[in-house]
């Protein structure tokens, strides 16, 4: 079937099998491979993207379901002039990534978390990231980065 999804501001149309998942659409039709697949039970969160502004696990959404929607992936997060998003900057400054595989999903989950709760406590950050696994960092620096990004977001630019 024919599906059109606006990804990072650009409409992508593709003729896909009914069973095509959003993550497959992004990776195969869109050629956007930052979004990773780490499991098959909606457990790991590596595939997290923003769907009309809210975080979803794109392995558990059919492309056909979101025909006509807008999706933001990691590749679309920086501003057009290449300036990284505050969450990306905080992940860099705080060493919140190692191998980078969970990072695209983790960053998108953090962006969504801060949109909902701009001033979270450490426990709220941890609870908010429960659906995103990272095997390398022990979460310590990820949590610190999200808190730092929240602080940066509250300070006048």
């Amino acid at each position: 079937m024919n599906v059109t999804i606006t990804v990072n501001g650009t409409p992508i149309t593709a003729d896909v099998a009914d069973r095509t998942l959003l993550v497959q659409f992004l990776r195969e039709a869109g050629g956007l491979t930052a979004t990773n697949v780490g499991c098959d039970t909606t457990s790991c969160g590596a595939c997290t993207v923003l769907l009309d502004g809210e975080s979803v696990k794109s392995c558990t959404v059919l492309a056909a379901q979101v025909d006509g929607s807008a999706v933001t992936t990691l590749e679309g997060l920086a501003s057009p002039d290449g300036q990284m998003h505050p969450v990306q900057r905080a992940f860099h400054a705080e060493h919140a990534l190692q191998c980078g595989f969970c990072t695209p999903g983790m960053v998108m989950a953090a962006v969504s978390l801060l949109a909902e709760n701009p001033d979270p406590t450490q426990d709220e950050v941890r609870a908010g990231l429960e659906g995103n696994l990272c095997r390398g960092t022990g979460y310590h620096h990820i949590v610190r980065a999200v808190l730092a990004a929240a602080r940066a977001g509250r300070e006048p630019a």
Partner: protein
Amino acid sequence: MSILGTRVVRTEDPRLLTVGGVYVDDLAIPELDGAVRATFIRSPVAHAAITGIDADAARRLPGVVAVLTAADIAEAMRPDKPMAEPLLAIDRVRYVGEPVALVLTDGTCQGEDAAELVAVEYEPLAPVVTVADALLAKTLLFPAAGTNIAGTGTAGRADPDRFGGCEVVVERTIVNQRVAPVPLEVRATAARWSDGRLTVWASTQNAQLARDTIARRLGLDKSAVRVIAPDVGGGFGAKVGIDRDALTVAWAAYHTRGSVRWAETRSENLSGMVHGRGQRQTIRIGGHRDGRVIAYQLSIVQDCGAYPRSGAFLASLTQLMASGVYDIPGCGADYQAVVTTTTPIAAYRGAGRPEATAAIERAMDLFAGQIGMDPVEVRRRNLVPAQAFPYRTATGAVYDTGDYASALATVLAGAGYEDLRAEQARRRERGDVVCVGIGVSCYVEITAADAASGETARLAIDGDGSATVYTGSSAHGQGHATAWAMLVQDELGIPMERVTVIHGDTDAIPEAVGTYGSRSLQLGGAAVHKAASQVRDKARQIAAQLIEASEADLELDRDHGFWQVRGDPTTALTWAQVAAGAGEDGLEADVRFTAPQPTFPFGAHLAVVEVDTETGKARLVRHVTVDDAGVIVNPVLAEGQRHGGIAQGAAQALLEEVRFDADGNPQTATLADYAAVTAPDLPSFELLDSVTPTTVNPLGVKGIGEAGTIGAMPAVQSAVIDAVAHLGVTHIDMPATPQHVWAAINEARAAR
């Protein structure tokens, strides 16, 4: 001022944070255009004879290119030793998830459809699920071998009478359970046969080791195989070299003279990729009521899973490290490594050493409990003293440097041990439902165990004065590109942003070892340092000729990257000018660094756990550590390694366990069933500094990748037991799930 030891954020990150890494399954390169997709047909039973495979229906399905079985594999590639592992199962399967056949299809999804149509007939055999079953030997996995035992060993003292003089002897059998490594990137491989050469893109920690294995198994010359490791999404030991499944994909490309790519599912990963740990340990500890331990025996039964792989090696490392940080002259250890009809076991973060630490630390706690002494005091009285290094253990390890008492004192002070004990006592007096437990572990571990193999580095100064490092070490998150560039900047004064680090391509780096056993910095980093030193020596000669000065009068201004006559900036030459003066040979050095012996990082961890005695739920609330890995090149990276290590150790203590049912069926083959540790399961960690340099390499560094796991696991386990010790609990096997803790509380109450 030297850049070494300063907090430098990673140069790797901007790419990973904006466009993402390029892992094997992300590769969109012309060489893989038209590659077919591989899907494995895997054994659904733990142990069975294969009596027939009918793939006709699958072969007729549109999109199916081939269905390959053991019958397609040349006789010469079959295993020739009794317990050796085939590529595809030949006449018997020995674990659920074992590869039986391979479907090659044009598209991604057809493979799973086609796999459904391959009919494999199995004649069930009795499963051998536990090490006890394996030792009973009623069923043999490899009848030709005549045994289920894949290896045995002994070390240290063997005489039983060393326990004779002890006032107190405690013995207990404990479990260091099987866990899953769970790198977030599952296994993935792409392979292409073209022009008489096989190129393999693999998610591996060791491209060169993978190349050698592929060449050997497929009967190819090493020069006919190229292995490339693109970005690798975590390894933790489970991606050492190339495993059977990936090797089979490489073979399929060779066999079909085409291009094949494969990425497994997480369910395949959790039953098909190696697991870690899996030891049944019997600990026997003896000593006097004054706290002095004089005898210790660790007897290990190592579960190897269905094929030996590195199971016996892991147990030998456990054996080597049996006495830990303690001076126990009467220490002995022995192991039996056995095969079971379960997923094979190999290296996972720590690889044999966490098992040793968990055993001796548990033994110390049990001994302390028996004599009624504070477990910290018992430890203090038995530590190897700081003046005893180098220290040879009874089991044959030679510890290079250490100060164990200082590590313990630092962690106790940092955590406020006395205050914590007071809080524990207050809660117990009040009869709080939520009890607090304090667990302390002291550890020493072995890193770069194969120090003599060393590591390679080639450093070339390019025409524009920038530098390129070809490192034999292989990064998958550790931050080599940043750390190696720092080493070059420190030695040569070339700014790190002008240093390019290349790894993981056997054509660019033909000879190397790669990454495992916390060897990267002390061998791979030391090799970079050595190459840089040689380049500096060569540059000095060249600069002396160019300036027409004596070498002894020259200096390298490392702040600016200039060669000049000492104190005379008018003579300054840039690296580009010096490189140009090198002529056709170029300005470079190609080295292998080897160390005279392994290094032994050490430390102490203190965990504070709250246990709800009504539900059995244990929660880690604080974790304070000293992890002394010698000199620190970049504290940011070192902290990251410690954090990740602590999390994995705590995860094993509290949550994670691979389970099989009585028939050998995996019960934890998805991430919905396997309790991989999440952010809310953990606190932020409190890291304390300690630096005791080693003398075995010029950087003074030891390994840090696994230390956190080794220290954390016993501390957290001990804290959980300590929280409910006043209820009569003396031991809880890991993981300390609510079920285990609740059962232990109730058993203790019933026994009173």
